[in-house]
């Protein structure tokens, strides 16, 4: 299973320098303040997340080193955390990071078809980024929305109750920068039964 969050590599693509943006710099101090004195290193996960958001969805070598310097940690300690959690991507990803759930409930409800659609629309292989840099498609294990299977996660949002048709539309809309509906695609409220209250 190829996934940019499941690699132990660390590198820069060019000679980028990572510095906290002004907004994020303020947020860094807000985040660190939440932790007790001499326990500031606990902020490493929120800071890595912040750095990943600022750095187009992935953590470069300089981003990891910046986080380490911000928290006075050694580089290897931060890298250990970044490689442990698959939510931290260590390779560049496209604008839309599409994680298709393939665990049993979603698979029974047709996740294979979703993967096929995603490959077609993005014209890329699993685990790779499309040439237009719009998509990175990966398969993942259970994301915990089984009752609305099949589902995918695109960046921070869940898209549930998918089929080939509506999923294709979502991806094409994303490709054309159109707005899309999050959550259930059949109007289901949270995880209520499909037909409302008559079940």
């Amino acid at each position, binding site marked *: 299973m190829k996934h940019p969050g*499941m*690699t*132990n590599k*660390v590198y820069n693509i060019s000679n980028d320098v990572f510095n906290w943006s002004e907004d994020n710099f303020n947020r860094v101090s807000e985040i660190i303040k939440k932790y007790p004195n001499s326990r500031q290193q606990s902020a490493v996960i929120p800071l890595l997340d912040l750095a990943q958001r600022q750095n187009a969805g992935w953590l470069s070598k300089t981003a990891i080193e910046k986080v380490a310097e911000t928290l006075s940690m*050694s*580089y*290897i*300690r931060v890298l250990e955390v970044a*490689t*442990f959690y698959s939510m931290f991507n260590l390779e560049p990803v496209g604008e839309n990071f599409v994680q298709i759930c393939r665990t049993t409930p979603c698979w029974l409800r047709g996740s294979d078809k979703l993967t096929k659609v995603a490959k077609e629309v993005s014209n890329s292989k699993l685990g790779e980024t499309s040439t237009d840099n719009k998509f990175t498609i990966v398969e993942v294990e259970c994301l915990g929305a089984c009752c609305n299977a099949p589902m995918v996660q695109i960046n921070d949002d869940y898209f549930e109750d998918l089929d080939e048709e509506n999923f294709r539309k979502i991806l094409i809309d994303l490709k054309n920068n159109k707005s899309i509906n999050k959550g259930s695609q059949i109007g289901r409220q949270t995880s209520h039964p499909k037909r409302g209250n008559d079940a």
Partner: protein
Amino acid sequence: MPTITIDNKKVEFENGMTVMQACELAGAEIPRFCYHEKLSIAGNCRMCLVEMEKAPKPIASCAMPAGDGMVIKTNSDTVQKARKGVMEFLLINHPLDCPICDQGGECDLQDQALHYGFDKSRYEENKRAVKNKHMGPLVSTIMTRCIHCTRCVRFSTEVAGVDDLGLLGRGENAEITTYLEKTIESELSGNVIDLCPVGALTSKPYAFKSRPWELTKTETHDVLDGVGSSIRVDTRGKQVLRVLPRINEDTNEEWINDKTRFAIDGLSRQRLDKVYIKNENKLNVADWDTALNKIKDELNKRGKEKTITLSGKFTDAETIIASKFFLDGLGSNLYDCRFDNAQIIHNENESYKFNSSIHEIENADAILLVGSNPRWEASVLNSRIRKAYINNNCKVGVIGPDLDLNYSYTKISNSLIGLNDIKEKKSEFSKIFHNAKNPLIIIGTSAINNSEGASVLKLCADIAKKLPNYSSTFNPLNILNQDISRVGSLELGFVNKYFDKNFEENIKENVKINKPVIFLLGLDEIDPKNLEQAFVVYIGHHGDLNAQHADIILPSPAYTEKTSTFMNIEGRVIQTSRCHNPLGEAKEEWKIFRVLSDLMNCDLKFNNLNDVRKYLVDNNKNFLQILECNNTSNLSFASPEAITEHTIAYNITNFYMNDSISRSSETMANCTNEILNKEKAS
């Protein structure tokens, strides 16, 4: 005391012990990979599973605190089955390359697989393979063999104090590495080789050299720094192939530094194995009789009562006593061992010893380092300071230039003037220091190798005497000598006031006026230009700087080739053992002086090593008890001297190559290039 039942046997244990420790008290051996006494508990190998009554499943005994009334079984069927299961999982991804693995024959996994392993594998999928990592010139890695016990990570973080190693990824993808495969920058890095329970981290210089059962193992002591670590030397024929630490809680715990471990290839390079006589500016091979007779002629010609003997870094007490009595017989007392110009207070052995003992560092809560870089001067001692820093939040103050220590410290001043500040209790640190319960002063030779040296010692003694933990039984004043020979030589009175204050200058003057015969006992640390007009007899084992300028070279055995006595910095008597016969024609120094004494009618009466040692003990009772040190606490030389400005410069510039053995070592040269000069490995 609480009791625990282990395999139907009741034992008492101390609160805070783990189940595994309690099992060991009961004599039950528990297999383990990740657990190590000196490291924090990880509990991730699961090999130490035992059965606990009322627990639904086996427990990891290394991580479970022992409780009163627990009933443990270490040998039941469940336990056996659980351990077999763990072993099967460990072996799934472990390669079957024992025949080409350097750990073969001394591998924890191999041994335990014999007890708990199956004879065939049920695993049909592909085994994983992991890329090898570069970790520097000393540690070679075959990462496919790694079982992720994380001992190496915990060692480098906790003991060595360098956050270099880490475990990346998780599960199937977990791998041990340094950040971007940088070199481990620690002088204790070799210990990860011993800690690794499998063959993932092995010794690079020793790679494919030998099998453990082919080696002759000799228990002895290290002489390359002042600590005198307990080591085991493995030899094959006349070659020392490796050095491993032995456990000695008083000195080195379980660790040794990289120089001790890896400088041994220097023992087979640049060696002096024949007698040489200089003829028309060229050293020619000669025989012992000619050389000794020539020395006799020169002694008579140049005036035997002017003879000087200077000792070097590795001179043992037997040599010191033999050469001292020889010189006394000639009517000269011009002998000394303080080639680095470190000052002492004469007849005060507290002025050159590590009085508090190395073990006491663990209890310290404030340490003042005066002109000392313990990381380079005594690395295993430095790991104790780090231990105090971690366990007791020990505050460290430094008088001297900035240092790269593996604990945080307060810089007081670059020059000795900072001592005045400590005396007057002005600065923040000096208040902490004086209010501490267990403060220690550690003086390096870099602080006392100048004309102010004696005043520094007196002032520090004065400060020490006013510390709360000073008593007639505890002396917080410590002098950290860098050489194994120093304390023993000073104990035996191998010192002359004539050489006080400026050692090199005094020799230069003396040589210019007297043109004497000078015996150098393996001393390479002085400028040969100052000796030009003298007749230099070099007795040593390495063709280093001064041997090249000598008029006669007499070969002597290195520390692995003779049994000799030393005193470490604490004054602890240690005895080294002969690991193999001396190279070439080398003869023990005491034998050389014995023959010379016959030629010069000096009346030395010893005829064998036991006689020499009898001389030794008669001369100084402190040599009587091996591995003991009798330290006193009087500090009668204390006086509140005023210190004038004197900037400190540390006298070790290269940890890896600062004696004749390590200067001849290729491994140490590689370390210098890669670790100190940061050159990329080829």
